[in-house]
């Protein structure tokens, strides 16, 4: 294999870090949101559903712009975060993770929700009759039974994060070593006449990374399904 340039390694590691953090942080929220959507009956349910889908519908560039408006250091929320916790999203990799998380959020929610809706209601009744309260049931039944969906959602989200471009470049710019992920690096290469080869190398790297991730997840999934086959 051709050895990687430091810039390529930078982009690779950065992509992994950003996607990993994005998925890890978004997952619990996605699980909760999906649970609310799948099992809950509350007034704002439809609005919540719509909001979750927003990042899908709006072009990533618009999402990036909206993030800038919401989380920029001059925006009230962003300013507050910056002053109080010294958290700054703009121009930093955490911002890229935030953008990735938001853009890939709908995939996670969809997949998890689909799994949740497939759980046989009778099992909840059984658990309830055995003394399990709502939170107990959530951890002892809902979560483990929704594993296939949670994993599927996490994979899709991870893959989508790896490929996320528009929202990142708009929100946090294209700073080498800080926010220049693989897609941004590929984009940069493609924008340059004669940059095709560099772009192809980076694309191959992306693909390899994704294959490895898929392979891992496939194995995990298979083990889970073997357990739960019914």
């Amino acid at each position, binding site marked *: 294999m051709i050895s990687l340039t430091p810039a390529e390694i930078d982009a690779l590691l950065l992509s992994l870090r950003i996607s990993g953090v994005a998925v890890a942080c978004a997952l619990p929220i996605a699980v909760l949101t999906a649970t609310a959507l799948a099992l809950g009956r509350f007034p704002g349910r439809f609005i919540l559903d719509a909001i979750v889908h927003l990042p899908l519908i709006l072009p990533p560039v618009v999402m990036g712009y909206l993030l800038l408006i919401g989380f920029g250091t*001059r925006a009230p929320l962003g300013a507050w975060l910056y002053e109080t916790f010294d958290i*700054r999203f*703009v121009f930093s990799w955490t911002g890229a993770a935030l953008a990735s998380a938001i853009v890939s959020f709908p995939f996670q929610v969809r997949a998890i929700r689909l799994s949740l809706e497939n759980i046989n209601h009778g099992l909840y009744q059984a658990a309830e009759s055995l003394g399990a309260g709502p939170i107990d049931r959530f951890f002892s039944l809902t979560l483990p039974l929704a594993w296939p969906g949670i994993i599927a959602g996490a994979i899709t989200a991870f893959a989508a994060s790896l490929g996320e471009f528009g929202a990142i470049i*708009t929100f946090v710019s*294209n700073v080498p070593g800080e926010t220049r992920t693989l897609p941004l690096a590929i984009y940069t290469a*493609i924008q*340059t*006449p004669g940059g095709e080869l560099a772009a192809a190398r980076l694309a191959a790297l992306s693909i390899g990374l994704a294959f490895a991730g898929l392979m891992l997840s496939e194995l995990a999934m298979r083990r889970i399904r073997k357990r739960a086959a019914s």
Partner: protein
Amino acid sequence: PASAWSKDITVFAAASLTNAIQTAANRYKEETGAHIRLSLASSSTLARQIAAGAPADIYISANQKWMDWLSDQDLIMANSRHDILANNLVLIAPTNSTVAPLTDITKDTSLLGLIDADDRIALGDPDHVPAGIYAKQALTTLGQWENLAPRLARADNVRAALSLVERGEAPLGIVYRTDAMISDGVKIIGTFPENTYTPITYPIAMMKPQADNGALKFLVWLLGDDAAAIFADYGFNAVANKATIIPDTAAQ
């Protein structure tokens, strides 16, 4: 679909020309009735599309490199390439900025000194966005590149850089003068000396194979004074020595 395209004159223009070229096209339609089809994207995207067979009649690039690239592939009508516009590079700040306007930007002007420790200067990505490439030249000439490189916010295009400054995320930005002039959110606090970077010129050319004479007529019109006036409205400079060689086909 192919037939639908052939009736119109198709112009692929760099996204930074959006407003100006649209106004020009409208005016031309009023005058001649000819319908202009515009496609606006980054110069690189457009150039690659033309190379892949896009049915463009005219291409206006924001820099010379991509025009050269097409020319190398022999996709440009001989003699049809001209510089149509020129632009300048300026330093901007948000309208409410307290930074005092600079009369001159020289080697002694410390741009870094104008921003706080964790602030960045917004510009088009010097790796590929034309405005950024020019900015890099200017900063290098001014001996400030080394210091500033790690402190840049490299935007996807000039407009994105502009909006970073408009929103105050970046206290300073380097953009084309045209962009700076139209935006209400920024003010120009300095102009980069023209000798610090290659003159910014927008080349235009006819693409091969040429569909009909209409396109050529439009190209000639764009090079004319009426069009120049429109471009001037949007802050573009006229090119000093605009070539006047009209390709052979135009005469027919």
